[in-house]
């Protein structure tokens, strides 16, 4: 079985202050896999995700693709097109849940009926139909995260970069979020997830990366689904995609 690298970035350096947050590290993500990125507070997980998303300018970084190596700056547009970055607290635009989903529809503007049909599908997919007309800013943290995931699903991005997607959620909200993440993975999206609570994502993940001292230092391939107490009932057993 061959695996296609969806994104490979080398020589990633970023310094906000001393010491540097990221120092000459590299990451490789494969199509359809789910990678868990762990590390202490301030280790640089969010910074790395934002660099991969094309939102944070690194001091240096090289993006490797079929045609060779290009700088982050040259690749920024491609990175923005490839991925969707989900903030720890999902930002909701002013308007209803449906309005927020409409922002994720591919441009140029489609026919109104087509847009509405796609929004309806996204609402059904995320189980948001009952609150479609609710003001998005009145939603709970779990509902906001589901709207954010539905937006990512609608945008058809191949890579989803999720920053602490289940932080401050109650148990049912975490379960629903995990179910949606699993659905995204099943549909072939690549997921890179940072979390302080890796135990919740063990069943979902194919690999675990540790970010320490500015570098991705260890790759832990052996993840045991038995260790995940919050495993959703409909989540299928761990599917190993890579041999690390």
């Amino acid at each position: 079985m061959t695996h296609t690298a969806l994104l490979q970035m080398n020589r990633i350096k970023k310094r906000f202050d001393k010491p540097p947050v990221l120092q000459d590290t590299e990451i490789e993500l494969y199509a359809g896999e789910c990678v868990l990125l762990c590390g202490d507070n301030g280790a640089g997980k969010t910074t790395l995700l934002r660099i991969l998303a094309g939102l944070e300018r690194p001091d240096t970084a090289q993006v490797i693709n079929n045609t060779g190596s290009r700088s982050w700056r040259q690749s920024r547009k491609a990175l923005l097109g490839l991925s969707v970055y989900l903030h720890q607290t999902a930002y909701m635009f002013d308007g209803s849940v449906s309005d927020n989903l409409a922002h994720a529809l591919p441009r140029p503007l489609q026919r109104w009926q087509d847009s509405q049909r796609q929004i309806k599908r996204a609402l059904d997919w995320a189980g948001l139909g009952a609150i479609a007309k609710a003001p998005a800013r009145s939603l709970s943290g779990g509902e906001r995260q589901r709207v954010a995931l539905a937006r990512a699903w609608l945008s058809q991005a191949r890579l989803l970069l999720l920053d602490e997607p289940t932080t401050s959620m109650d148990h049912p909200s975490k379960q629903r979020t995990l179910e949606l993440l699993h659905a995204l993975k099943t549909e072939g999206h690549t997921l890179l997830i940072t979390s302080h609570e890796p135990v919740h994502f063990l069943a979902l993940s194919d690999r675990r990366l540790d970010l320490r001292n500015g570098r991705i230092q260890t790759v832990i391939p052996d993840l045991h689904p038995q260790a995940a107490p919050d495993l959703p009932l409909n989540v299928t057993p761990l599917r190993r995609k890579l041999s690390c």
Partner: protein
Amino acid sequence: MENLIDATHQAIVLLLSGNSELWSIIGISFRVSLSAILIATIPALLTAFALSHWQFPGRRLLITLFSTFLSIPAVVVGLTLYILLSRQGVLGDWKLLFTQTAMVMGQIALCFPILVAMGHTALQSAERSAWETARTLGAGSFRALYLVMREVRFGLLAALLAAFGRIIAEVGSSMMLGGNILNYTRNIPTAIALETSKGEFSQGIALGLVLLIMAFSLNAMLHQLQGRGRPVS
């Protein structure tokens, strides 16, 4: 007191009778001020966005300068442009002194810092994640900019109204650059100043009433829009 009541009564009669001189003054006032605000708004808001979202050398100095220009007297703007546009001035060849174009230039100089400073404050209140969410969902720079501005539209609208209020009522710059020529550069504030100096209060009050009604209407509109868009807490 009786004089004031009489003058106000005459002012209302003047307004309602469709006095051509009076309505010409009102027309010139709105034409000049609307032109200035239309020209200034987009570059000023783009400047405000750059100041609120990007780091670049001199950014803090620019913010301080625009804040300082908020309180610059209109006559100082008028004087500066007068020197530049007068026959011996750097821009003397343009022959713009005592024209509506010169008045528009003066009013742009007055409203630009207000739009930048207030726009900057409004845009700073927008969360950085609004811009990033728009970009990561596939919006190009201009669409993301539009979405962020839409998020703080009430703050930007307030900036627009404050800027318009400042220039439609300013007298110093318009008097120096326009020359108060009847049916050409005489606008509401310069006409009020002239009529008052002649002791003709009724026309001054009539024009003052127009300004008051306009200010009330614009503010009522803003409050109505803010009421509709109040975020859910």
